[in-house]
């Protein structure tokens, strides 16, 4: 097996994606892992969450409880009798997600026990605790004593701490550190000597365990607390109020660090941020030293944003010189901290990058950001920061880490490729398609071509991309004011998609996640075969934004079907309605089945043993009658619908070779038009970019 870079699955001890197809099944099953972690069904033990009424404990009680419920794992919540009811507050969310019946069923499996923090309740033993997820306050001595109490009572219990700062070596237990919001964020940073069944179980339950090294504070906390600290330093340098800094940080990088603290709950979040930075500064020095403002707000528990009756009155703006300083104050430390994460090999580079995007709202992961800047520009930015804050230059600065930027681990943050000499696999580890993915996909194709691989499977990475949501619409913001920009994006991405068809004798796309929408579906449709998990939702929701599908969605799928099947595609395109993969076989997908069946079908196609015939792409021009019954649309959708209909007609009315240009031109024109600017993308752009 040859790989461009290490598969992220391998970090979980789950092999490669190529291996999944070759073996025709997933590397582990949930049932096996539940048995390993909680014991066999006839002697199933319980999961205990201590601090169960806290923000983390209650959130994880719901996230894990809903997933483990079908396997008969009792969820025991342990907390002080005086703790406010955090678990009960989760019920509304459960009901929204699972319906009343589902929510009641999940809650019926939750047992709540009180304790005094010293001795465990005697009844706890009745539930045979096998796994403790500790979510109690961030005080090292208390945590250690807590583990001792459990171990003295339940000798073989496996323990994980959700700590956001203490290393495993200090705690004496493994770490499973989840990201906010805890009910829905699937990512867990895991610290353990080697991938354990409990970590693999998280993966099998559809969560995102990410192994990281054992250091003070984990990747998310370094990045997020680091960003908060950087923003605070800018505040100290400029007086700019927190609410305004948030706007500039959001425009530049994505997150609103101060608002996030208030949203999480300032009292707890301020303490955690302070605690993280306090410990980091103790180990690494002034780069991480909390500012007095943070010290104060940690003590007071006050919000960062003003109270409603003091909504900001005086606006702030920045000159070009101010913006330059802002970048150095805010971006400089983040880059320096990232050099530390790299130096300490805190995790797989794709993990470090993805954590920022998935958990800290970075529009582009921190490594992808550095890659776009270029190593030398990033180094110069840190040096500019050091001129403003000389104390930070005294340590923890490893510029040579950035000089490794051309290595495959840096170059393939989102897209990987593997091959066995005959069949290649391209995996996409980002849910939304953007220019980084596009560039990496091209490099992956080049890499396979160089190895003379002409059979390829294109799929998600079975790790980060549990779904494929379409194009990253943030990439379209510049196109709102520039037809050429939109046209170039459409033409460029379409050209990449065409390579999946043109550059391989056999190409099979496999949609393994919950959904595949918009640009991602357009990309996957370019493969010669399209296979999907039967429950996957497929759709082209562009009309609802509105925007014209820019990666040949307006003609490519129509060229692959007989005329009588085109109305189904037209309906998808013109209404944005989605379809289950199991209902789309023969006209949108070539095969839909269960996970194991679909994996096998993909491998058979890729290895040339399948009887499924390739649907060819009609090269010539043809007319598409638009006589299809459609429900009424809103004004914006109606405009989008008309534009998409026009694009369908015009791009189908020319040979395949010309269609790409027409689709790109019409897509670019529409993006720069009134309806797109007034639609969701325009609104998102305004919200993101307006300061």
């Amino acid at each position, binding site marked *: 097996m040859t790989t461009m870079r290490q598969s992220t699955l391998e970090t979980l001890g789950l092999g490669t994606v190529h291996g999944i197809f070759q073996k025709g099944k997933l590397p582990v099953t949930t049932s096996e892992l539940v048995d390993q972690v909680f014991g066999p069904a006839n002697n199933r033990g319980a999961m205990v969450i201590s601090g169960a009424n806290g923000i983390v404990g209650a959130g994880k009680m719901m996230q894990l409880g809903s997933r483990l419920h079908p396997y008969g794992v009792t969820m025991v919540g342990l907390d002080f009798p005086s703790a406010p009811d955090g678990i009960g507050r989760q019920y509304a969310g459960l009901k929204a997600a699972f319906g009343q019946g589902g929510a009641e069923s999940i809650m019926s499996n939750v047992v709540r026990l009180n304790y005094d923090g010293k001795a465990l309740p005697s009844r706890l033993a009745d539930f045979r605790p096998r796994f403790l997820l500790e979510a109690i306050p961030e005080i090292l001595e208390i945590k250690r004593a807590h583990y001792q109490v459990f171990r003295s009572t339940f000798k073989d219990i496996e323990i994980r701490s959700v700590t956001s700062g203490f290393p495993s070596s200090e705690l004496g237990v493994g770490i499973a550190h989840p990201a906010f919001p805890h009910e829905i964020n699937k990512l867990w940073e895991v610290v353990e000597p080697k991938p354990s069944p409990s970590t693999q179980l998280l993966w099998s339950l559809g969560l995102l365990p990410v192994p990281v090294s054992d250091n003070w504070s984990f990747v998310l906390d370094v990045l997020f607390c680091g960003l908060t600290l950087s923003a605070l330093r800018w505040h*100290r340098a400029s007086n700019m109020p927190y609410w305004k800094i948030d706007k500039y940080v959001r425009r530049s990088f994505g997150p609103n660090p101060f608002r996030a603290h208030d949203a999480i709950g300032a009292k707890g979040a301020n303490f955690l941020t302070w605690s993280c930075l306090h410990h980091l500064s103790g180990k690494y020095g002034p780069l991480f030293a909390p500012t007095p403002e943070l010290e104060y707000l940690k003590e007071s528990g006050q919000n960062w944003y003003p109270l409603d009756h003091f909504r900001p009155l005086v606006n702030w703006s920045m000159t070009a010189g101010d913006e330059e300083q802002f970048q150095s104050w805010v971006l400089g430390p983040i880059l320096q901290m990232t050099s530390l994460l790299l130096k300490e090999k805190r995790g797989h580079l794709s993990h470090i990058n993805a954590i920022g995007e998935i958990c800290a709202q970075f529009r582009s992961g921190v490594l992808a950001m550095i890659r776009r800047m270029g190593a030398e520009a990033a180094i110069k930015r840190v040096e500019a920061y050091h001129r403003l804050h000389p104390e930070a230059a005294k340590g923890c600065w490893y510029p040579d880490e950035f000089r490794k930027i051309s290595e495959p681990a840096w170059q393939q943050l989102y897209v990987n490729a593997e091959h066995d000499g005959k069949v290649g696999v391209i995996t996409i580890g980002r849910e939304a398609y953007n220019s980084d993915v596009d560039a990496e996909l091209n490099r992956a194709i080049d890499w396979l071509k160089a190895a003379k691989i002409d059979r390829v499977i294109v799929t998600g990475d079975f790790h980060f991309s549990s779904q494929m949501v379409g194009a990253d619409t943030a990439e379209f913001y510049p196109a709102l004011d520039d037809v050429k920009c939109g046209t170039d994006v459409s033409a460029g991405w379409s050209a990449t998609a065409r390579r999946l068809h043109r550059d391989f004798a056999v190409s099979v796309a496999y949609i393994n996640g919950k959904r595949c929408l918009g640009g991602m579906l357009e990309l996957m449709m370019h493969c010669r075969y399209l296979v999907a998990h039967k429950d996957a939702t497929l759709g082209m929701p562009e009309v609802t934004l509105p925007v014209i599908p820019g990666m040949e969605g307006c003609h490519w799928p129509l060229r692959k079907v007989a005329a009588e099947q085109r109305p189904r595609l037209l309906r998808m395109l013109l209404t944005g309605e989605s379809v289950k993969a199991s209902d789309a076989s023969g006209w949108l997908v070539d095969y839909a089945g269960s996970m194991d069946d679909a994996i096998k079908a993909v491998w058979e196609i890729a290895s040339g043993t399948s009887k499924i015939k390739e649907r060819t792409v009609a090269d010539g021009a043809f007319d598409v009658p638009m006589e299809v019954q459609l429900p009424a649309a809103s004004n914006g959708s109606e405009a989008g619908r008309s534009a998409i209909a026009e694009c369908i007609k015009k791009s189908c009315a020319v040979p395949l070779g010309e269609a790409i240009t027409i689709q790109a031109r019409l897509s670019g024109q529409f993006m720069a038009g009134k309806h797109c600017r007034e639609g969701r993308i325009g609104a998102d752009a305004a919200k993101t970019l307006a300061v």
Partner: protein
Amino acid sequence: MKQTATIYPRARIPYGTWGSSYFPAWQTSPLAEVNIGQFAGEAMNRIMGLRRVPVHELEYLVIGSTIPWHWKFWTAPMVASCMNHRIPGFHVEQACATGLQAVMVAGAQVEAGGQDVVGVLTFDRTSDSPVGVFPERRAHQRTYALSDVWDNFGFDPATGKAMIGCAGNAARKYKIDRKEIDELTLHRYDQYYNARKSGLLDKVLVPLELLNVQGKPMGVIDEDLGVRRLTLDAIRQMRELDTCVTPGSQTHASDGMATLLVTSPEKARQLSPRPEINIQFVAKAEARTYPSLMPEAPSLAVQNLLKRTGLTMADMVVVKNHNPFSVNDAVFAKMLNYDWHKMNNTGCPLVWGHPQGPTLTRVMIEAFEEAVSVGGGYVLIFWCAAGDVGIAAAFHVGDGGNKS
């Protein structure tokens, strides 16, 4: 240059760490709609940011305002919170003298050694001034409603007379004639517009954009709204409201804020963009004259100040009078035998209005900028305040060795 003692040897006003909003006339700008205390706090934070003074350097805040505002009870601590900076402080007021009295209090605070960096923040909103409802069992109305700005201007309880009457009284006492007042008024407007044109006021005035509760722009305060160029003919044709008092020769109500710092010498050098400029307090004198003769009170205070310090008018490189009426300047010229053409060179409250609390703070800042522009020296500022009070203060602006 004559040497004098200084009342606060440890206190300095760091050059360039100051600023004022423009003063839009009452009811002409979004300032009419805001909590002026909150606005002042946020505006000071902004101005300090523009001046590269981190607000966390501030250790204490003296605020000055005269018109009640929402949550005034909480005074300086509340206003400081609007700067995201929790420091102690308190509130002072003396009608139109508030700005300079606040600076004096800050000087005393530094002199006492309690703090090294004291912020002075003065502000007022005359627009929509609040109405106080006072139970008055001894008044026939039993309950008395008082519009803070206009009812107070219209009635001095000590004399039973309106403010405007004192200007007419002083004009008559000193035999000021209308022709001189009209020329003086025109000259003051010319001075203001010349100062604007020269760019000197750009070092003082800071445009501020206001947001509504949705965070959307509500307008930019970037003009002394209500100020318009006048011609001599237009001034001459104005109706006389009292002797020598016309709409052109009296000030108008306005809204705004102004701020500066008072610090130790070390902090002044650290915080000022031009640390070589040394601004020190020299002296202050006060006087109270006969009922309803307020415009002569400042001149009496100046006479006291000169006598106490040994300085003469010839020693002053900048002379600024807070002049709600042109009569004030004319009376001063007569009493001190001083050419009114030589004073108020960068404009004055007669022209740019009268938001009460911050008025004198802006006068001071303009005076210091003017002094620096001429190479330093003594600065004389004097003013009147409600109750027929006059106050004068002298400062010394060293230019870092070019002229001492």
